[in-house]
């Protein structure tokens, strides 16, 4: 049977994509899943310790302690904290660069594209300056000042950003973070050889990292980007491989740092750039969105209509995007830029430029981003795109997939645009929830992976199951890339919702799955939750709100998850993080956490059982609010 198909690829919820990939002559992640299917059980359970040369030590029934004496609990907690610290570091790097860019914008008196957000943040931070550039400069300084504090000095904006009742709880638990970068540093130091061996201390450190990651790396990055790149505006747009038009010089961007592209986007929109493209026979320039930075571009697509083609897909779609042959240049700046794109880029003669050495790709040229020299960088990118287009177009085969993706995806959803859509208040949404028209809210967020039943399979199936039960789904991260490409983020998806939710969606002409964009926008979901909680006068854990990161992939997702737990939310994962080797760590995260923050981890690899569990929690929370 398998010999009849061209090759074995992992299943995807996106069947058009998997057909496209199955027909490719290049290898992708979807092909490699098979040869990597044997997993190390010690790794899966988190009980392998490689911290010193006595190891690697592994816990087995006959060797319950490492050579140093570390128990399974200690080894698991150390490994987990290391992962959360690394994940936090990734997001803190992103917000640091966004703040640097805001400071540079203030210095150069560039265009402030989101003045409303600037005013909001300035007011929140208690900045008195009248001049917008002074305001921007001071906002950036406050953020950078906090990020660079030592760990023994608490960050100051936490008090301004956090929801009141949460802040109190965090204070009680003594998990208010010191300087965000220092907390990452401490997390790594704690876990070094024979330092911290207390699993509980290390788990509390994870919560502290969760707070700094969530409030700064997630929430603030969005808001700073709103100032730099424009606030999201709700609109409909096409998504998937169909957005690629071979007539243009196509630049695919991957990563997470949208603020690094502000200047490039502005330059590409100029007539000067367009005429350079026309001079070589192209219709102009197009940015092809891929991974989370593509999601962020799409969110703000309203402001970049002439040069942003649309979002092609999530991390595990990027190899397919490149394999169309229609991409002329890849500009990468952060993670989710799969090493797997490198040989495909070579095959299709695609030039790769990396603009952040933290994410240097093996075959990319590095042009280190610096706000001071950003004009040179934009020119370098444009010139290379033109050169690459001229060099390769006559020599490569182009293979498009016009049927892939969807047309009327609703995008541009943010805490502000959604509130505005509802008439400037959360009242209509709260009333729909109270009346039972919407049973509750599920944030289906995080990454995509190829193992939880296949590419986006768990994410899509769970989402369908939830909306059928009248639970509205908000999505941010690679999950949204998968959900939009299979049509769940278009108004027509209302037909898949339960009767009550369907009625709501049809009346408002909205899909039952709302697209908040990149994983960074998990911070926007937190703002939505806090604002609704405030409207109701309750704390976040009381809301009929659940989180699921069914197909979480990497360390950053663990830092996001730590934020979710700190917020007091139930958080489902289909694949356990490497914690199950420790009964203690597993119990703290799945049970005892409720007594600390109100949150807890739910590990379940069955779609229906997950939906049952999440629905039960929502119903119980409704009862708690007197709604049932």
């Amino acid at each position, binding site marked *: 049977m398998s010999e009849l198909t061209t090759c074995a690829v992992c299943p995807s919820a996106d069947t058009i994509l998997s057909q496209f990939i199955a027909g490719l002559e290049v290898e992708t992640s979807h092909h490699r899943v098979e040869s990597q299917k044997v997993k*190390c059980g010690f790794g899966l359970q988190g009980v392998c310790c490689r911290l010193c040369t006595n190891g690697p030590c592994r816990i*087995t029934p006959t060797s319950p302690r490492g050579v140093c004496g570390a128990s399974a609990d200690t080894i698991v907690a150390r490994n987990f904290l290391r992962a959360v610290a690394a994940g936090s570091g990734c997001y803190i790097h992103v917000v640091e660069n966004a703040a640097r860019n805001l400071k540079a914008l203030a210095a150069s008196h560039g265009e402030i594209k989101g003045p409303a957000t600037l005013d909001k943040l300035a007011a929140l931070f208690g900045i008195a300056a009248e001049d917008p550039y002074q305001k921007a400069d001071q906002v950036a300084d406050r953020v950078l000042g906090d990020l660079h504090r030592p760990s023994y000095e608490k960050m100051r904006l936490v008090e301004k950003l956090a929801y009141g009742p949460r802040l109190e709880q965090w204070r009680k638990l003594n998990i208010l973070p010191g300087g965000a970068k220092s907390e990452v540093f401490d997390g790594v130091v704690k876990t070094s050889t024979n330092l911290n061996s207390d699993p509980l201390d290390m788990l509390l450190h994870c919560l502290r990292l969760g707070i700094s990651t969530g409030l700064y790396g997630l929430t603030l990055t969005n808001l700073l980007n709103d100032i730099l790149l424009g606030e999201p505006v709700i609109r409909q747009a096409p998504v998937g491989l169909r957005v690629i038009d071979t007539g243009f010089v196509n630049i695919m961007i991957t990563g997470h740092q949208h603020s690094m592209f502000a200047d490039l986007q502005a330059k590409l929109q100029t007539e000067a750039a367009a005429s350079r493209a026309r001079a070589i026979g192209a219709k102009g320039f197009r940015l092809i969105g891929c991974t989370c930075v593509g999601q962020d571009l799409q969110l703000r697509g309203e402001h970049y209509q002439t040069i942003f083609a649309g979002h092609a897909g999530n991390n595990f779609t990027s190899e397919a995007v490149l394999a169309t042959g229609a991409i002329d240049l890849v500009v990468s700046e952060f993670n989710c830029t799969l090493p797997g794109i490198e040989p495909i880029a070579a095959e299709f003669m695609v030039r790769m430029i990396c603009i952040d050495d933290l994410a240097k790709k093996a075959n990319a040229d590095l042009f280190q981003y610096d706000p001071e020299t950003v004009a040179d960088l934009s020119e370098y990118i444009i010139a290379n795109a033109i050169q690459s287009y001229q060099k390769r177009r006559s020599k490569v085969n182009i293979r498009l997939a016009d049927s892939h993706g969807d047309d009327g995806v609703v995008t541009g959803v943010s805490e502000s645009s959604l509130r505005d859509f509802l008439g400037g208040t959360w009242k209509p949404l709260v009333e729909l929830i109270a009346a039972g028209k919407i049973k509750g809210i599920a944030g289906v967020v995080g990454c995509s992976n190829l193992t939880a039943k296949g590419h986006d399979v768990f994410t899509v199936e769970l989402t369908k199951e939830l909306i059928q039960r009248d639970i509205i789904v908000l999505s941010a991260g690679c999950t949204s890339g998968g959900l939009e490409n299979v049509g769940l983020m278009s108004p027509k998806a209302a037909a898949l919702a339960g009767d009550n939710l369907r009625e709501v969606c049809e009346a408002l002409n909205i899909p039952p799955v709302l697209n908040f964009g990149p994983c960074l926008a998990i911070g926007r979901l937190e703002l939505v939750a806090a604002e609704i909680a405030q409207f109701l006068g309750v704390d976040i854990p009381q809301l009929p709100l659940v989180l699921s990161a069914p197909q979480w992939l990497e360390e950053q997702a663990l830092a996001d998850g730590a934020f979710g737990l700190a917020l007091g939310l139930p958080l489902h994962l289909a694949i356990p993080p490497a914690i199950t080797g420790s009964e203690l760590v597993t119990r703290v995260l799945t049970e005892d956490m409720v007594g600390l923050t109100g949150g807890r981890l739910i590990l379940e690899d069955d779609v229906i059982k997950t939906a049952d569990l999440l629905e039960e929690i929502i119903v119980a929370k409704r009862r708690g609010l007197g709604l049932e």
Partner: protein
Amino acid sequence: MKRIMIDKDRCNGCLNCSLACMAEHNPAGKSIYVLNLTDIRNESRNFIALDRSGKPTPIFCRHCGEPECVIACMSGAMSRDPATGRVTYHPEQCAACFMCVLSCPFGVLKADTAERKVIIKCDFCGERETPRCVENCPNRAIYLIEVSEE
């Protein structure tokens, strides 16, 4: 009938085969995530020893053609099915004399660690087409081959 073959040169001692065996025989469930690695009642039927030069050496039940364990067993707890060639242990008939343990030329049989009452014995994973240890060896250091009857 099928036999597990061993290519010692390919083994790097990851113990994935042992974990697979424990998970497959875990009464709490077969998922790796529910395997309690600190409970001595979870035992592997195979193991990896180091040879004189420190090279990892996978040790597996051979399901021998003329099994010493069956010959030594006086209570009939060990039997060999001539059709499948599998050597099977029947705990209800076992007198716990451990003669099988003493007589196994590969040192593969052992008494259970917690109680020392029953023998821990490879059952070729029962109904499974491929034993889980074989399936979980990333290096193909152990693999299945079809062998002819005697």
